[in-house]
Structures are given as C-alpha cells and as structure tokens.
C-alpha cells in the first residue's frame, strides 16, 4: 500500500460510486425491460470495480473475493437469468410505473439530497471518499422507491437487487473495508437464491394470472 496508490484510489472510488448513482437514475427513467437489466449489470460492474480498487489499494484481499462474487453473480449470472426469464415468458417490454417519469425523477433527486444530508454526520467514519455512504443510502432509498413504483414482479426483483448493491457499497464504505467474509457470502447467496425463487414465482404468477402485474394479486378470485 503506497501513498500514490491510495491517493488514486480515494479519487477513483467516489467517481465509481457516482457512476453507480448515474446508472441508478438511468434505471429510474429507462422503460425497456432488457435495458433495465443491462443497466443493473453495469451498476454491479461499477461495484465490482470499487471492491477491486479497495482490495488492491488497501491490501484488503478478502474484499477481492467479494469483487469476484459480484462479478460472477451480479454482472454475469443474474442478468443472464433475468434476460432469459424475460425472453421465455414473452412479456411486454415496457415497464409501466405508477408515477410518471419526470415526477419519479424529481422524487429520486429529492431522495438523493435527503441521503446526502442524512449521511453527513457520518462522513468522518468513512474511510473511502466523501460520497460513498450518501450514494449507498441513495441506492437503498431509490431502490425502495422503484419497488413501490413498478407494477411488474420482475422489475421489483431488479429494484431489490439495486438495493442490495447499495448495502454492499455501504458495507465496503463504512466498515473496515467490508464485512466479515462469512456475512458477505451469506448475503450474496441469499440474494442469488432469492432472485431464483422470485424468478420461479414470477413465472407462476404469469402462468395463473396471464400477467405479471402484481396489483392484480389483491383479488382472491379471478
């Protein structure tokens, strides 16, 4: 761990974190389902890059395991799985949110500012850059908002995944370069298994309701 390396890392990490934020905001406005999945993959790639930079610059090699897991799981496997699911159930490509796009963009902007204000007292705790915690909180909040705002089960799965990205980022930013490996792996496999189960569930919902619109699920008989 040399001085220039950590200097460069402390520059690079906020930049990559902002990139994650940009992808999240694009996810909010993007209506095409496949592009949504690709944006999520790109966001996970940025997370992988952050983890790799942390591992390299601070010599925290167990973070590298997180990076590899994220790369394999969230950049390659889950997007592939979701894309296949979308293709197989032949759903309409467009996401139809409850709140229209400019309004949801405004709400997400407000959430971003809120997250920065909330995270402000903790900036002294952060070891990596001044904006990773605000971005992590923003990913959490906008992830929840996306989950509320989207009708289709599969987009809600995507929103859950971005929320999880936020948790990972917070873990890397706040704690001593990542949580214990066991916890990270547990979270990771939880999410992967969760998405697979949700994928099956989506398939079943689609089979029995001819739609993935979860707002139709509140009728007991159809």
């Amino acid at each position, binding site marked *: 761990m040399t001085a220039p390396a950590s200097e460069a890392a402390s520059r690079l990490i906020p930049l990559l974190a902002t990139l994650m934020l940009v992808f999240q905001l694009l996810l909010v406005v993007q*209506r095409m389902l496949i592009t949504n999945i690709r944006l999520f993959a790109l966001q996970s790639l940025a997370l992988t890059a952050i983890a790799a930079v942390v591992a390299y610059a601070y010599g925290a090699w167990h973070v590298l395991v997180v990076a590899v897991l994220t790369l394999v799981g969230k950049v390659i496997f889950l997007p592939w799985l979701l894309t296949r699911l979308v293709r197989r159930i032949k759903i309409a490509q467009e996401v139809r949110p409850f709140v229209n796009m400019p309004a949801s963009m*405004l709400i997400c902007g407000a959430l971003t500012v809120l997250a920065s204000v909330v995270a402000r007292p903790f900036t002294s705790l952060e070891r990596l850059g*001044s904006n990773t915690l605000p971005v992590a909180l923003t990913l959490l909040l906008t992830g929840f908002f996306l989950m509320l705002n989207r009708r289709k089960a599969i987009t809600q799965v995507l929103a859950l995944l971005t929320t999880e990205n936020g948790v990972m980022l917070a873990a890397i930013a706040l704690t001593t370069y990542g949580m214990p490996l066991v916890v990270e792996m547990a979270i990771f496999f939880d999410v992967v298994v969760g998405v697979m189960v949700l994928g099956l569930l989506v398939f079943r919902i689609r089979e029995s309701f001819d739609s993935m619109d979860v707002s139709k699920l509140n009728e007991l008989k159809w």
Partner: protein
Amino acid sequence: MNLNLLAIVAQTALLLLLAPLVSGVIKNWKAKLQNRRGAPVWQPYLDLAKFLRKDMVISEHASWVFSFAPYVVFLTALLVGLMMPLVTLQAPLDLFGGALALVGTLALGRFFLALGGLDPASAFGGMGSSREMTLSAIAEPAMILAIFTVAIAAGSTSLSEMVRVGQSSGWTFFDPAHALAFAALFIVLLAETGRLPVDNPATHLELTMIHEAMLLEYSGRYLALMEWGAAIKQLVLMALLANLFFPLGLAADGTPAALGLGLLWFCAKLLVLVGAVVLVETTNAKLRLFRVPDLLSAAFMLALLALVSTFLFK
C-alpha cells in the same frame, strides 16, 4: 484580451473543415456497426459541394426571414465555435460572457432555425419548429446547469479559464460532480444534435423528424448553410464535452509542436466521443416523441444533482 486575428482565421478554418468530417465519420461507423458498407467519410463534403452548386427553389409565400435564417444559423454556430477552446487553451474569441454567451448564441441560432421552419407556412416546418422548441426548453437548462458545475469548480464562467484550471490540476479535476454533469451533457448532446433516441438523422419520416422537418423547404445554397451550421454546432458541442471534462493536451502556446499535439489529442478525444455516440445510436431505438421529455428530465436531474453535489459532497 487581444484579438488574435491569425488564431481566429485558423480556428474558423478548422471548424469549417473538421465539422463535415465528424458527421461523415459518425455515419460511416454507424453503417459499419450495422453490417453495411456505408458512405465514405468525406461524403458530407461532396453533399455540401453539390448543395452549393444547385439552384434554390423558394416558396413564393416565404418572407425575408426565410432567406435570413440560414445565415444566422451558420454564423451563430461559427461564433460559438470561436468562443470554444478547441486546440489551444485560449479560445480565439473570449470577449464576453463565456459559457453564458455560448448558450445564448446557440439559443439565437435555434430561434432563427425555428423561424425559418415556420416562415414558408408548410405544415411540416411548423411541426418541426414546435417540437424543437419544446425539447430545447428542457435540454437547455440541463446544459446550463452542467456547464455551471464545471464553472463552480474552476471559479470562472470563461471557457478558456475553466479549461486552464482543469488542465493545471490534472486528472484529479474530474470529480464525482463532473461525472454527473458529463452524463447530463452527453444526453443533451444527443438531443441537441438530433441523434437517435431523440431524433433520427437518417430519415425524413414525417412522424418522427424534428430537425429535418424544419429544413424541408430549404434547398441549394441555403440548405448547404443549414447543414454545415448543424455540423459545426455538433462539433462544438462535442468539443465542449471533450475539452471541458478532459482538458488534456491542449496547446498552451502557439508553437507548431504544441499545436500539432493539441490537434492530435483533440481528434483522439473526438473519435472516442464519436464511438460513444455511434454505440448509443445503434443500441437504442427511437423514443416516442412524448417520451423524450422523460429522457431530458433525467438529464436535467443529473445536472441538478451535479450542481448540488458540488456543495454537498465537499
């Protein structure tokens, strides 16, 4: 500020010559990416030469505004180009206003473009003008906010000064706020140059066209001026993205070596940007017109967050 006549002439020549080439390269690469052979990169020069030779057909209902508009569009694009540092650190024309003058002059050109579309009272022209003004009403604030983000970091609204501060602080100049502003300005670039998610530059399909609709009544020399002006505006906006956010290799003095290196860097940055534009154009479908404000509102929000985050993330 001294007016360096030689620099003005040189930059004007560069703008005039490079702008059609950039559009040509975009078209060619796009064709290549879609498995077509594509027109050669110098095709826009041939088009312009042909337009300049041809006679003009002007509607008898058109007033003087119709003939006046092409000159305004062309000259404002050129003027904006002269206010922008392309190869040298110091822009040739740095007399007033800086970034604000740039946005204002662009708006003047757009105003006359819309007037020129309205004046012959053809149905398509009016439609195109109305669409252009609607979209630019959202794109322009995003552009101003994005430029201001850089201006705050540099402590000046003069473009030359911004670029100079950027270059002296090296690559550390590019901080998170800049990343957000860059993303916003990239979307604005797509909208302002009539690129694919917003407008399709390749067709004259009446339902979708924006920029082409305003030019429908133009022919001959006027059309050449309009097209050339649009190409120069595209080059300037790309230069804005390239030089404002990555001010690498700009020539500090007028020595041939520095200028040559500056030109090389500039072309390299332009090619990367062209590649990005081509990639976006090939992978995205045209948005429905009423969906375009969604995209532009995203750009606006990104720019706003960029500006806010310069204060919040300090």
